[in-house]
């Protein structure tokens, strides 16, 4: 276990951090921009097929889905942003709630906010408990000592 006994300082970690951050930054910013058909695919992923229950436009071949795909391609050619296209398609089918992403406002905003709130509360609660869990906070009482003594005696008796 030579690796475990050799002391490792911060230097190799700093080197690793540089490589990782550099690689991630390069990989993030050196992306080619999406082709129109890739963009159409991404937008179609987030729109529900008007004549299906929960399938996306991108994974159904119904005439309604094909119509939506045509619509998306037209808007991309017209230079709309993804968000504008989504809103446009949704407005063309009033009352159908075609967006697979629930909107962030109103009652449906809860579906986004609740998990975040729960996680924050849980982490805060645990952090609060951790302060309590410092070893220093532990005081051994006589009750504990007698518990241990009893347990040891019982163990001896069992042997």
């Amino acid at each position: 276990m030579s690796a475990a006994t050799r002391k490792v300082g911060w230097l190799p970690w700093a080197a690793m951090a540089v490589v990782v951050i550099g690689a991630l930054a390069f990989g993030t910013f050196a992306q080619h921009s999406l082709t129109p058909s890739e963009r159409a695919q991404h937008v179609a992923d987030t729109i529900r097929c008007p004549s299906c229950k929960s399938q996306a436009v991108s994974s159904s071949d119904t005439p309604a889905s094909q119509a939506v795909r045509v619509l998306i391609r037209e808007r991309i050619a017209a230079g709309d942003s993804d968000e504008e296209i989504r809103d446009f398609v949704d407005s063309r089918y009033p009352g159908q709630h075609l967006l697979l992403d629930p909107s962030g406002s109103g009652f449906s905003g809860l579906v986004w906010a609740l998990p975040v709130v729960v996680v924050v509360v849980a982490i805060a609660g645990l952090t609060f408990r951790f302060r309590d869990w410092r070893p220093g906070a532990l005081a051994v009482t006589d009750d504990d000592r007698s518990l241990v003594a009893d347990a040891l005696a019982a163990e001896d008796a069992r042997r």
Partner: protein
Amino acid sequence: MNAALGSFGVVLGFVGSLGAIVTLAIGLRGNRPDLLRMARTYAFMVLGGAVVSFAAMERALITRDFSLKYVATNGSSATPALYNFATLWGALEGSILLWSLILAGFTVAVVLKFRARLTDPLVAWAMLTMFVVCTFFFGLMLGPTNPFHTLANPPLDGPGPNPLLQNHPLMAIHPPMLYLGYVGFTVPFAFAIAALVTGRLGEGWLVETRRWTLFAWTFLTIGIILGAWWSHEVLGWGGYWAWDPVENASFLPWITGTAFIHSVMVQERRGMLRVWNLSLLCATFALTILGTFLTRSGVLDSVHAFSDSTVGPLLLGFFAVIVVVTVGLVGWRGDRLRSPARIDSPASREGAFLLNNVVFAAFAFVVLLGTVFPLISEALSSQRVTVGVPYFERMTMPIGLTLLFLMAIAPVLPWRKASAETLRTRLLWPGWIGTAVLVFSLLVGARGFAPLLAFFLAGFAGGSALRQLALATRRQGIRGLFGRTNGGMIVHIGVLMVAVAFASSHAYQTEREARLCIDAKAGCPSTITVSGHRLTYLGATADVDAARREVGAKLRVDGQVYIPKIQRFPNGNQEIGKPTVRNRATDSVLIAMLDAPTKSGSVRIRVIVQPMIVWLWTGGAVMAFGSLLAAFPGSRRRPTDPVSASVEASGPAPEREPDPDRDPDPSSDPDPVPVGVDA
């Protein structure tokens, strides 16, 4: 005849379960060992009933007895033997029958495993709980999901199962695997209830049920992965997981079960998290029932949904009973559940497990919320909302990345407390492995922040897992691959393969639709190249038999011939595509035929190339293999022995590898701790 036999079996199972409940209750009350031992007879009675019903239904299906309503609506004389056999679990009533059979099987398995201790109140209460669950499911078959309804005027033939349920052999394997997982969680649940009722809340019952939990978890994993594979092969969109309510229903107990498998180690080692572990187990079981409700009551739109029926309120009621009973029992036993131990530092194995559990709980919460939110929204604000794939992907991606990070760090953390230096030392090589994976991904052209981060963390976590395995095998030879910690690391490697496949198939999928002609003409080539794969159209095929008609397109893909098909079954006017997949370790080519080939010699196809998707299915196999290894005892140490037993107290402790599977007391008895000692 079949109906009579089947109904007899159901009644036998129901009466046996009820009788067992009464007998065990009286036996527990009056402390009568002779009554408690009768659990064995009752268990065999229930299994006998289930086997008779199952056999009667199979016989009806195989002999095409259309006087049974189930066979008349789901069977047909043309269905091939394998799919005909599998039709038993293709619809609601039959799926409850399969559930009952597996449940009865588990009941008998528990009785046999604990045959010497049936008079122990803990085991008796566990048996009682199992029989209550049995009563519920056999009761369902007497009421709303009776599979043995008969028809006064039987038709001459039936429509056969849904076409999508008879065009892939996984139909015969995936549902039973999934049910083995679902139903298997009844056993640890029963012991958890028994521990709460008897007040014996030490670690004994946990140790008893550890392998049962692992067994159920393994089959649930296999079931889920096979389901993903099936949909990838059949649906033709390159998808394998659509966050559909039915898929989520199977995934939810998997999440809580996985959380339990981790946090239970904290309880065994340090006696902490008792309430939490009990809650996780009970939640896992409750979620299997909730999932059954969601998928069988028709309340949610799902591509998998079973037909509407009146079974919904009953399942919801049973779910409510489970929740109320569990919460009540935990509240009642709260005083005995407090643990004297403390977590010394967040940077410790137990601290990491705790964080793991927070993340898994958040995961389960997100999936549950997203699944039922349309219902909540409609009930509370009369607003219809669709919560679809984009929501789940956006919410679960940070969770998945956090879990990858934890898988990288946690396996090297010692119990109690880790110093920064320990972490620096132990994580160095795993960290460099992750960095190498990252750089390699960049070099082969991978781009984008999230997938690259996933590859880095997966490499890092893989390094940590390999480090543990290397240390264990260096010390113990081949035995270093067995046991919970080492088997668990192999499971981790499987999970990482799945994660990498998930990230790369999502981020780097190429899709193309094209019309191909046998003779190339303007605008209609005979050969196209998609992501480096050459596809050439060779001609149409056609095939007709009693079960189906199919047309196919012969294509040469990278030199080999593949035939995507479109099938039409006699019972439907719908055409079902049967895509074909060319799998390689680096990428898969999925070809779906969109329209039947034309007389003029052309065909329209969709080609989807997804990198590394094979890693998803193989990763699932690695996970199953790892949990098999984890089920074997890795060391002779009794899991409840204090781990500090043999640590030398004198001298400054050298910086050495704490060995999770070290045997501190070689003389200790290899048998698990009897349940009695933890009272």
